[in-house]
């Protein structure tokens, strides 16, 4: 599903945000990405959705080389990926419902179907009563859960979540993780960047650890046997 081959990324001269990253992530896997603040987790996720282009190296996502796909194919690539951004990235001028279903609308899905789907995902994150609120009327954790709802509403083949439980209480965090597990079991590949060691330990999934831009540890895929 995701293949990194010797990827380097840099924002300033001489300082590498990512250094020679190579890893494979198979379809249907559930992977945690961890590392200290500033280690490069968000940068890695940005490369996957082609928000940035790597300085060096190749990245394959869902069979496509994201550094070289034509511009007009990018929206389709991104629609196949659900992303929970670290800073939520909710549109302030739109309600929770509109934020969650915006992409469905551009796909021409009718209002009734959008309502149904939005209700379904908002209920899963416990926010069905905030459907018509604006993001600035929500608490931090509520905004984060809206971001989660938006990421999963389109049944993505790949789910990226950047610190999706940073503003949630432990019980809610567990619930969200269980939701991700459920989605994962339905076949979606899940990649979660998090600091929460407790969570990582409890879930017992593959863990990739970054440190200062380098991949220093990878517990390895637990699905290799299945796929080959």
């Amino acid at each position, binding site marked *: 599903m995701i293949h990194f081959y010797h990827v380097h990324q840099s924002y300033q001269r001489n300082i590498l945000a990512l250094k020679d990253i190579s890893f494979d992530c198979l379809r249907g896997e559930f992977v945690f990405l961890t590392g200290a603040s500033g280690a490069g987790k968000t940068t890695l996720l940005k490369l996957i*959705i*082609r*928000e940035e*282009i790597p300085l060096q190296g190749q990245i394959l996502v869902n069979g496509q080389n994201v550094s070289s796909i034509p*511009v*007009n194919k*990018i*929206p*389709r*690539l*991104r*629609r*196949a*990926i659900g*992303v929970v*951004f670290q800073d939520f*990235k*909710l*549109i*302030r*001028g739109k309600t929770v419902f509109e934020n969650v279903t*915006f*992409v469905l*609308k*551009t796909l*021409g899905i009718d209002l009734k179907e959008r309502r149904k789907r939005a209700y379904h995902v908002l209920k899963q994150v416990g926010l069905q009563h905030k459907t018509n609120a604006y993001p600035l009327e929500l608490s931090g954790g509520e905004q984060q859960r809206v971001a989660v709802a*938006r990421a999963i509403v389109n049944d993505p083949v790949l789910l990226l979540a950047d610190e999706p439980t940073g503003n949630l209480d432990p019980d809610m965090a567990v619930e969200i993780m269980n939701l991700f597990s459920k989605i994962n079991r339905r076949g979606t590949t899940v990649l979660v960047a998090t600091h929460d060691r407790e969570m990582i330990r409890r879930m017992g999934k593959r863990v990739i650890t970054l440190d200062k831009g380098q991949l220093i540890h990878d517990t390895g895929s637990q699905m290799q046997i299945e796929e080959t």
Partner: protein
Amino acid sequence: MLRYLIFAVWEAAISLWRSRVLNLLAVGTIMFAMFILGSFVLVGINLQKITVNWRDQIQFNVFLADDIDQSQIEAVRGTIEGSMLVKSAQFISKHRALELFGQDFPTYQTTVNALEKNPFPASFQVSLIRGTERAQFDELRVVILSREGVEEVYYDEEIFKRLDFFIRLIRLAGWFFGSIMVTSSIFSISNVLKLTFFTRREEVDIMKLVGASRAYIRGPFIVEGILIGLLGSLLGVSLVYLGHLLLQTYVADAEPFLMASLEPVFLPMSWVFILVLAGSLSGFLGSLFSLHQFLEEHISYQ
């Protein structure tokens, strides 16, 4: 396609309403740009009408020889009235010329009456049609002069020159100002739209990141730009109409005896249409350019 149009228009309407304060600023600025443009055209059209009225009254005299006979007079009349430039021509006999002189200069009435021989020649008093150019007049003059029995073609050179110059000045000023107005209206409209859309960079960035395709991001923005431009120019033209009404009342009150032919006219429908179209077009172009310049540079698809 229809689905896409509905999407774009609907999204545009929602967003126009949600950020109405901001959009009202944009509409207001565009309204004033179009108002100025429209007023300018209005004044231009009316000035032209006035000067044309003036020029209308340019006349010249064709003096005839004393020994001219009736058939020659008719020939000259034919030449004059046959010209496309001539609006009207009036024959003034020697006798009538003497009378008119006496009326114009009553002081000399007695002097004139005492004369043995009528010193005044017969003439045609010719009025030209509106908008006759100097060169056309000169041509006509040569033709008339070549007729037998024509002594002289007399006209007030100075007035002709001045009016001509004046009209050219107005026309020049019209083009000069007109082009400046159009350019700057479009410039300021697109600036205002850029500023309006600039406040929404973030929104566009997010839309892109969640996978909305170009058309679905651009569509509503462009429709919004067009709607703002349309609304602004409609309001601007309405303001011009209001100004026109005011001017009309003022003029009607002020100079009733002078004004019969000078009553201000409103912009012809074609101009109204052009202005509104220009407003919408600059809305369209403004949003297109600002999308390009601001809204898409940040997170490039490259």
